[in-house]
């Protein structure tokens, strides 16, 4: 499904990704962990071209992201993204937040879009907030709306960048619950997270990134219980 080959990314003269190779299968849930500044966000953002890779190839399904004249907007309908800070549109109601993209893409009529949006909002448990504005919601509710907004385009892959780290501890659970459900239903997911409990329970594989590369990867058991690299061990000792 996702194929990354020798991915490099520079910011100016700073090399942030130093050659990443990996393959992710359809229906897999991959969690990416690692210290701050190790390039986790940059890696994830390359996967939907929010950052332009400097070198290397990314192929998702039949799409060659790194080819010339690649249709970025079409790809983004198939690859959803959820941000740490939700990035909801504050001037639109919750319902409008969710229906905006499908309507603009003419994927469905306004009626259909609203119906689907309500269905998704109910599924993530915020159906009753449809007519409110983002400022009136708690952090957990906002993040669930953000997930629904991404799902409204029926993406084949979902990318999450620390979706719970801006939340009050009480609200972390409700968002992880929604993500767990998604994973169970077979969504292909790449999740950058600090929630080791979630990674252990839900991930098929865990990538440990450090210094711009994937230092170690494996099943949650391999990474959490039997880490091979010294860096992985120190990191986990601080975080667990």
């Amino acid at each position, binding site marked *: 499904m996702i194929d990354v080959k020798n991915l490099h990314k520079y910011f100016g003269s700073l090399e942030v990704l130093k050659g990443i190779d990996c393959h992710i299968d359809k229906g897999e849930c991959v969690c990416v962990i690692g210290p701050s500044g190790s390039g986790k966000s940059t890696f994830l953002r390359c996967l*939907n071209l929010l950052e332009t890779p400097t070198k290397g190839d990314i192929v998702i399904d039949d799409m060659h992201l790194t080819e010339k004249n690649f249709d970025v*907007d079409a790809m983004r309908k198939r690859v959803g993204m959820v*941000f740490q800070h939700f*990035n909801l549109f504050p001037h639109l109601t919750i319902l409008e937040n969710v229906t*905006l993209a499908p309507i603009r893409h003419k994927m469905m009529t306004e009626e259909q879009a609203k119906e689907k949006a309500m269905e998704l909002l109910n599924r993530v448990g915020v159906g009753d907030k449809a007519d409110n*504005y983002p400022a*009136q919601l708690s952090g957990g509710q906002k993040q669930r709306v953000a997930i629904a907004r*991404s799902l409204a385009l029926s993406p084949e892959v979902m990318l999450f960048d620390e979706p719970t780290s801006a939340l009050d501890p009480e609200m972390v659970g409700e968002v992880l619950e929604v993500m767990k459900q998604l994973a169970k239903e077979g969504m292909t997911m790449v999740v950058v997270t600090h929630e080791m409990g979630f990674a252990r329970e839900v991930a098929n594989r865990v990538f440990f990134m450090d210094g711009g590369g994937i230092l170690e990867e494996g099943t949650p058991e391999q990474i959490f219980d039997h880490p091979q690299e010294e860096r992985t061990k120190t990191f986990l000792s601080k975080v667990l």
Partner: protein
Amino acid sequence: MLDSFYTAFIEEQRYLLYLDGLKMTILVSVIAIIIGVVLGTLLALMRLTAEQKGKSTLLSKIAYVYIDIIRGTPTLTQLMIMYFVILKGQSGLLVGSLTFGLNSAAYVAEIIRAGIQAVDQGQMEGGRSLGLSYVQTMKDIILPQAIKNILPALGNEFIVLVKETSILGYVAIVDLTKVSDFVISRIFEALAPLLGTALIYYVIVKFLTLGLNALERRLRQSDRR
């Protein structure tokens, strides 16, 4: 004092003159504001192409030079050049509106640019990540939010514009100040026309401010909790 005011405004139906001047001041201001906002937005977006590409573009350079020159030279000079050189023989309304419109656009452009840049970076990413194009995101997501933060500065610019139209008289366009100049030259009395005119400007500006404040309140609706 009351006497002076009678001479300055009532005698010989002078208030009719003031009304005429007021009409010109308001017409020029309104048309100039419209031109300024439309062209200013365009210039702002041109300058922002540089942000988007990470380096200056042809469009951003053109906008930069335009803004630099317009803001760097006195409006009076621009008005004279427009009246005597570019639009010679055209009506005062046209000359005035166009001069002030083109002038204001430069200031409006910088205000709008700052407003757009003040919208959280994440909003553009949020829109783009949903497959919306740059233009769609700008139109549906960034601009509607920017306008709220822009409005106070924009209001300032409009106020400055209205007051600056008082130089129209230099090229014989009969605005409010020109009428007051005319009356002063006839009645040999400056204070009453000056104060009276100042009051009229004050009222115009006050209306403008109140209108803009009301608009701002409406736009801030979605902030309510």
